[in-house]
């Protein structure tokens, strides 16, 4: 602000300020945008909670809210058992999976600097599912083997993806093509296991490849919760670093980020979270891609708000997809993985088309 006070100057300044923004204007515009983004976050949280409530109160014969509420008071033993052993576990694992997949998608997109990255498109989900299937055949009696093997194989596939990004001339598409190749490999391996598996394990494994929320018990949920809820806060705390890494490795380093450490830890967190998601409900595709991108459209790319928004949206999408799968051909239940693919594939196409258009 100048101290020159001549009338001509003041007139000129008044005229200029009518067009040129002042520092206050810049800050106000930024404040308005931040407020808008907060509203979107609240909306997504509401959507997630609404989805959870709706799904909780929706049974095989439609809306049964009063019965569910009554069961919480323990008035009806049968209804209570049904809620606690079927509907609530289904909701809990669905919410955890949605959150884990959405957060892993966000982290993958930032760390690999690739908008098309997600646990599903990179083949990490297929890798984890193969690890889980292998564990079921090799150690059918050992409960910790499944999550352990899922983590190991998720990690292997994500490290492969990180390796691919380090190749010279690697483009956005290179990574996705490599992901498709990895996905084929693990699908073939899982099919091979299915082909040779004894009848009892076979059914369990087949169920894996569709993605379903129906089979998780409370013990499984506790394990999945640990795998998803422990890395999640770390990821959120690294929000600024993830923002910086979007501007490039060197810029991030010059602004104080230990880039290689962030990438390795990010990959580990993302692998553990997506392994936690697929461990007990199989491959639920596209959530890790759709949820972050929808959130990006609404709240922008600041991870401090993007991560919670994606997580909420991931929860909402999985829960609502599962609800739709239960309603659509009731009493038949369509596995949630099939439902999310119906939404995810067109979205994936749209992303590819939009990205290629931008480049020309």
């Amino acid at each position, binding site marked *: 602000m100048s101290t020159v006070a001549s009338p001509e100057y003041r007139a000129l300044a008044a005229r200029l300020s009518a067009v040129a*923004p002042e520092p206050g204007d810049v800050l106000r515009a930024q404040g308005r945008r931040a407020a808008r983004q907060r509203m979107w976050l609240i909306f997504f949280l509401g959507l997630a909670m609404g989805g959870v409530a709706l799904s909780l109160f929706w049974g095989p014969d439609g809306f049964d809210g009063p019965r569910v509420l009554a069961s919480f008071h323990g008035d009806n033993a049968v209804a209570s058992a049904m809620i606690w052993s079927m509907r609530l576990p289904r909701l809990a694992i669905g919410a955890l999976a949605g959150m884990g997949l959405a957060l892993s998608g966000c982290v993958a997109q930032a760390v690999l600097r690739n908008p098309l990255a997600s646990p599903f498109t990179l083949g990490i989900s297929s890798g984890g599912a193969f690890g889980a299937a292998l564990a079921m055949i090799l150690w059918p009696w050992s409960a910790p083997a499944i999550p352990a093997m899922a983590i190991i194989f998720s990690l292997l596939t994500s490290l492969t993806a990180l390796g691919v990004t380090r190749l010279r001339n690697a483009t956005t598409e290179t990574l996705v093509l490599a992901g498709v190749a990895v996905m084929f490999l693990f699908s073939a391996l899982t099919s091979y296991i299915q082909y040779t598996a004894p009848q009892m394990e076979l059914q369990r494994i087949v169920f894996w490849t569709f993605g379903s929320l129906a089979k998780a018990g409370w013990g499984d949920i506790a394990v999945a919760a640990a795998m998803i809820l422990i890395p999640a806060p770390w990821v959120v705390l690294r929000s600024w670093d993830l923002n910086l890494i979007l501007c490039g490795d060197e810029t991030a380093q*010059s*602004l104080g980020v230990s880039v290689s450490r962030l990438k390795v830890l990010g990959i580990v967190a993302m692998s553990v979270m997506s392994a936690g998601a697929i461990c007990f409900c199989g491959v639920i595709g596209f959530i890790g891609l759709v949820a972050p991108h929808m959130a990006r459209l609404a709240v*922008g*790319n600041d991870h401090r708000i993007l991560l919670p928004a994606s997580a909420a949206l991931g929860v909402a999408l999985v829960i609502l997809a599962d609800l739709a799968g239960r309603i659509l051909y009731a009493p038949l239940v369509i596995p949630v993985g099939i439902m999310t693919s119906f939404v995810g594939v067109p979205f994936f196409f749209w992303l590819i088309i939009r990205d290629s258009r931008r480049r020309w």
Partner: protein
Amino acid sequence: MSLAVQGLCFSRPSGRILSDVGFDLEPGQVLAVAGPNGVGKTTLIRLLMGLLPPCAGHVNLRGKEIPHYSRSALARLVAYVPQGMTGIFPMKVFDLVLLGRRPHLAWRPSRRDLERTAQALFQLGIEGLAERDAQRLSGGQLQKVLIARALAQDTPFLFLDEPTTSLDLRHQLEVMELLRGLARDKGAGVLASLHDVNMARRFADKVLLLDQGRTYGFGSPDEILNETSLREVYGVEVARLSGCGLTGFLPLRASV
């Protein structure tokens, strides 16, 4: 309290890029790094930032070797302006400049951080771009945004990689005057690689002229930039022109 570089070397498998480069930079000075394309100016700045490991030599900043600084401590001392940026997701210009405050904040930007960001936008005259998507800017606009981010970082040292390359004449002058002013008024140590020898001559206190990865000369602009050095380093014949108290060089032809 300054930057001292000694015997700096860097090689790639394809060969030596820099050998035995040495110079120093005091607070309040503008140092121009000049030299033909591919001579290693960008590599030199990356070495100074600790982004590349030198194969020999020392970069000493305020009495401490660069590798001994933590990334975050270094980010509070030196701001780096790269030649460009390829973002993968849209980001508003304001947010991009706000990232410069990262070394000073924990989670939520304070009022001061936001004000400093707005101020940096005004210093570069790009306040009108604040809510624009950084991916949709022209090369020159983006260059100013990156400089604004470095200003918002509030560091005693600034290393800029060809900060004026994609700017038009007026904005080149404005940016150079801004850098000059930072050195003069805030005592910042500014190092910038420059293509324009006339800009270097006019705005720099010291010039480091590189030739084939080696120091051709280091000293005041008058000493280093003259007809002989320009012929030997750039391979051009130049005419010396004077007027308005300034001296400049007009390239005439490539020398044989």
